[in-house]
């Protein structure tokens, strides 16, 4: 089965909202959500550095390819039928630096953003 495993931070409200939104989107590849650094995550990926996955969103492809941070976000976009085009656009050499900056900024401030949006 071709899936992407998304290791997300269960303590962040923004991430839970993102999860709810993703659940409704039509997908080209199935997404499996596993809380980062959980027993489930350690069982699935025994060799992965789980402390690192707490820092930022991590996506693991069915064949073991690991994507951290902004790359993980791009892979999640790529799995969605409506946004696959955008994943290529945002990953293009012209836009990739901006994508990385924006995604990192959101990711590092996720708890503050969660507080502001009240979840």
């Amino acid at each position, binding site marked *: 089965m071709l899936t992407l495993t998304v290791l997300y931070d269960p303590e962040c409200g923004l991430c839970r909202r993102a999860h709810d939104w993703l659940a409704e989107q039509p997908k*080209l590849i199935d997404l499996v959500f596993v809380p980062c650094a959980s027993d489930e995550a350690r*069982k*699935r*990926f*025994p*060799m*992965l550095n789980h402390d690192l996955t707490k820092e930022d969103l991590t996506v*693991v*492809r*069915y*064949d*073991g*390819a*690991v*994507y*951290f941070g902004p*790359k993980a976000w*791009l*892979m999640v*976009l*790529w799995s969605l*039928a409506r946004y*696959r*085009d955008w*994943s*290529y656009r*945002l*990953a293009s050499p012209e836009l*990739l630096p901006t994508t990385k900056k924006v995604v990192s900024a959101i990711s590092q401030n996720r708890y503050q953003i969660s507080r502001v949006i009240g979840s």
Partner: protein
Amino acid sequence: MTTTYTYLIYLAISVALTIWVARTLHKNGRVFLVDVFHGNEALADSVNHLLVVGFYLINFGYVSLALKLGYLVNNAQEGIEALSVKVGMVLIVLGGMHFFNLFIFSRMRRRKSHHDNRPPIRPDTFTAVKQEA
């Protein structure tokens, strides 16, 4: 009498323009469609033909509806002025239709790129995956 001549000239110009634009679309749109349909030329030709039929119907429909001037043309100057307005409108409608067609072509091409399964970016690293029992 001058009004009738104005109508006839308007029809001649509009019909000629429509045929010219339709042929240009037909000739140059084919390459796009063959690409969209993965080299299936029979299907591309069929869709191309259907698009051109729709193009003709809409444009001739507009030309026909916009024919009536609502006043009498007394001399050549008034005739040319009336023609400039009418033909100008036909040109703008043709231009709009032309861009609409281009939009459809580009959309079809984009939809094709969805079959692209290449990930957008290289992974950072690889890890062992424990297969679920």
